């Protein structure tokens, strides 16, 4: 099976700024792919390269096996859900959704039918006559989704689509996006700076920083086996410690130890509690173990040590992930 999107040594430089620098990855057909990174990491530029708003300075991009460099956005069978939705303010909801069919010359009756169908798909049946400006944020989001899906694109790009929504709505839309993606069997490419969102929704995640791709893999791979100090820290939080300190790997190498993998254990090593903060489901402890600062997340309980007290901690060697000397 041909990959949906392939990047081969793709760079996009703006003057001296290397927004995307020699990036390689493949997005498989039908998968939910997340591009994760802080702002300015190059993830959005990668999305815009797939959509065709940007052209690579070097390297090449294939979409379902066809070279895409130099192809303008309107000749790509790829659609985007924009961060601010970018609904046309001078059109109503139905006209917005039918726009893609209209410019491809689809007749009025057919495109109205398709638009209504797409609106029903995002549970907005009957909203066709409203102005885009009269909708709530979540509704605009759905219109933007319907407007893209109505074209039956080979790849759907989503640029931080949930960023502007409040927490409740965001969780609801996350589920809905997953449901739609499975039902339609489309390739979804999703840009986000929210690591939880990326981990919970995607089949595979690519982590970006400074215009380079740091790591690509399933959420579990990324979380359990971060390839670098950056990934370990950005995806969840992590204690990055010398490998031999953690009891694994060779001297000179670094290792990642997740805070939730540290437990209080009467048979463990002695540490000093520096801080203690109650977080509801967990309690966060700041610890000092022989001069090494560590963060631990433990279950709340009556017997937790006070700041200043000494306690004993331990972790399974299997949970320690050695990242190598360069990380």
């Amino acid at each position, binding site marked *: 099976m041909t990959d949906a999107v392939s990047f081969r040594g793709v760079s996009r430089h703006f003057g001296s700024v290397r927004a995307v620098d020699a990036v390689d990855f493949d997005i498989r057909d039908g998968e939910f792919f997340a591009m994760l990174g802080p702002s300015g990491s190059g993830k959005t530029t990668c999305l815009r390269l797939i959509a065709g708003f940007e052209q690579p300075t070097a390297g090449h991009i294939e979409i379902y096996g066809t070279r895409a460099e130099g192809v*303008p956005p309107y*000749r790509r069978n790829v659609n985007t859900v924009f961060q601010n939705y970018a609904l046309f303010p001078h059109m109503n909801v139905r006209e917005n959704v039918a726009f893609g069919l209209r410019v491809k010359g689809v007749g009025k009756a057919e495109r109205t039918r398709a638009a209504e169908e797409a609106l029903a798909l995002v549970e907005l049946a009957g909203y066709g006559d409203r102005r885009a400006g009269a909708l709530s944020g979540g509704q605009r989001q759905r219109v933007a989704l319907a407007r893209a899906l109505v074209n039956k694109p080979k790849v759907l790009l989503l640029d931080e689509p949930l960023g502007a929504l409040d927490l409740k709505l965001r969780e609801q839309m996350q589920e809905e996006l997953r449901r739609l993606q499975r039902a339609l069997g489309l390739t979804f490419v999703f840009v986000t700076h929210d690591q939880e969102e990326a981990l919970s929704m995607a089949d595979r995640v690519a982590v970006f920083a400074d215009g380079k791709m740091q790591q690509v893999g399933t959420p579990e791979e990324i979380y359990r086996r971060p390839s670098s100090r950056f990934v370990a820290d950005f995806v969840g939080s992590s204690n990055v410690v010398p490998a031999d300190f953690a009891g694994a790997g060779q001297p000179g190498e670094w290792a990642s130890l997740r805070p939730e993998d540290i437990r209080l254990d009467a048979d463990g090593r002695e540490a000093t509690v520096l801080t203690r903060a109650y977080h509801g489901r967990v309690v966060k402890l700041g610890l000092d173990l022989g001069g090494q600062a560590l963060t631990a997340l433990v279950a709340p309980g009556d017997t937790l040590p006070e700041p200043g007290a000494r306690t004993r901690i331990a972790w399974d060697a299997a949970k320690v992930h050695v990242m190598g000397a360069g990380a």
Partner: protein
Amino acid sequence: MTSPAIFAPRSGVLARAADWAIRHPRMFVFLMVLPIVLWLGIVYIGALIALLMQSFFSIDEFSGVVQHEFTLKTYAELLRPSNFAIIARTVAMAAAVTLASAVLAFPMAYFAARYARGKWKALFYIGVMLPLWSSYLVKVYAWKLVLAKEGILTWIFAQLHLSWLLDAVLAIPVVGGNSLSVSYLGTFIVFVYIWLPYMIIPVQAALERVPAPLLEAASDLGATPKQSFRMVLLPLALPGIVAGSIFTFSLTLGDYIIPQIVGSGRLFIGQAVYTQQGTAGNIPLAAAFTVVPIVIMGVYLWGARKMGAFDAL
């Protein structure tokens, strides 16, 4: 899923041109700005430069023929007492007009930005835009009607039994005169009237951007109304005032019609340029005269840019 990932190019000249434009964004932008560069950059700037070059030529005093040789003689002529007086008079007038406009504009702009709502806001907008866009000549003409010796202003003063006040003002040497319509004071009033909207608009725009809580914060911190005006409002409105002053100053410097119609008959720079290039046929001196406002405005714009006035335009 049989549809292609990439559609075939569309046919037609326009579609192909659009494809080309997407692929060559730099060339496309270049083509978009090309007409303006040709029109303003070549024709207009070219004409300005040609004019400036003429100021380095001189006129033969006997034959009246322009001599195409580089000389600073024409600039030296500008410093002759009669010519220098014209420049000093114009700059003084421009400064006075700018100051008066700022003082008059501030309360109007402040009221419109802070207190006016709904109908009042619309009334203010139209009240400022109407005189701004009304015919310049008609406005000057209206003031000829207002200021005439037999006109409405004299009548109002008479009705209020204040004729003595008007006579006293007219008796002041230099600024006074036979009637307001043939005095410096009259010229000044008309200048202020004509350019006032150009001051109100940027000042109002600057004040609109001042968040109301800022003034509340100032009074919360113990500033008296006077202090919050001087220390908060004025500094924030200043870019707007500077932006407005670009217009009032520049427009007064270059105007030759107002002093010709309402005034004492003594020349301003604009009139000097007009007579030198017209009846006197001395293009080099006319060109040298135009350099004066260009230099003044150049310095002024440079200073205004430093104060961030362009953002308030």
